[in-house]
């Protein structure tokens, strides 16, 4: 499974990207479960954000969802922070 996150906007307006390929990872099952939950609830088009809020695009294999601060689910928040940190 390939998990990609793109974060745009924010006060600084600086884009960040991360990508994690789970195949072969010892924690792959955990990533799969988290990614499935994160994309289950997101819309397919970018929602309206708040001034200076981050906007996120999460792509899990061929599925893409969008979300924006501060309205992320707990799973989306966990996923984007892990992917941006570990897959930068």
């Amino acid at each position: 499974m390939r998990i990609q996150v793109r974060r745009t906007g924010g006060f600084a307006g600086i884009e960040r990207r991360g990508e994690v390929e789970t195949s072969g990872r010892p924690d792959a099952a955990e990533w799969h479960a988290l990614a499935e939950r994160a994309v289950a609830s997101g819309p397919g088009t970018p929602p309206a954000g708040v001034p200076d809020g981050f906007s996120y695009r999460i792509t899990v294999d061929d599925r893409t969802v969008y979300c924006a601060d501060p309205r992320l689910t707990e799973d989306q928040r966990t996923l984007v922070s892990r992917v941006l940190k570990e897959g930068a």
Partner: protein
Amino acid sequence: MTTHGGFQPVFCTVVPPHVLDRLARSDDPARSGPARRTLRRDGELRTLRQVTTEFRLAAEPDTRAPSDQPARTIHDAGHRTDLPGAVVRREGEPPGQDATVNRAYSGLGATFDLYLRVYGRHSIDGEGLPLVATVHYDEQYDNAFWNGEQMVFGDGDGEVFLDFTLPLDVIGHELTHGVTQHTANLTYYGQSGALNESVSDVFGSLIKQYALGQTAAEADWLIGAGLLAPGVTGSALRSMKAPGTAYDDDVLGKDPQPATMAGYVRTGRDNGGVHINSGIPNHAFYLAAAALGGHAWEKAGQIWYDVLTGGELAERALFADFAGLTVKAARERYGDGGDEFEAVRKAWEQVGVRIL
């Protein structure tokens, strides 16, 4: 430095938070000016108490009008994301051990102060709306935002970004999003979104300049100075004086802001480049303020404020619409063909925005 626990120099070494805080309490601008200079010189809390007591006694409370005092509440999210989080400081309570809380409280006071003393505006809605901020949002969170009701500040990751309450102009920027929401309500996308961003940068910078007593020539015109961690190659996040030059770093990349329409960036990201193309109206404001000289909040700031609150600025205004209204406001307030009118007209011409 002081007997207060947890006190640290904040926005810069010149303006400690308690000074900014107390400045909001003076009622007579003619007296707060000299008082401000005195306070800046010695920074003694004892003097501050005497000064503010004097002003308080002189002020007659009017229960019908909104208060001339802010109503601030600072919350601590405890590194989680539930808003607003636990209350850690209410209006009138003394500074505590947490410098971030103290900075947010003082920054809200400095912002309230500029809007009230200079533009006669009571808080973000003009009717004394309480000011709410949450600090320590999420973990290592590299951002600050306005959620439609309150300000939210992250601590930064410590490697690229430091605490977002550090620059006073960032606090002023976020609160000004509230002012815009309650006035022109510029749509946060494309050119109107870039104008929304620019208005926040303009008044964020003016709040800092006012607190420091700087003229247009003395001001740094930077947004987010002090926010970048040591080792990052850059002075701030944006420069109104020289858009595109604030940073150029291996990790951050290069400041993408254009200064003129020739560099206008068409993109769908960042709500249509709101933090990128804001460089153009930002630079126009700088040029007008620099041409007029003196305190930027007095003339250039007044003209921009007139446009923001005048009722003629459309929610989906384009740069040319905004520019036209600033020229009109300069003429109405300061006269046709005057220095103000000429400075504003030329500023837009220099950044390539044609006034229709």
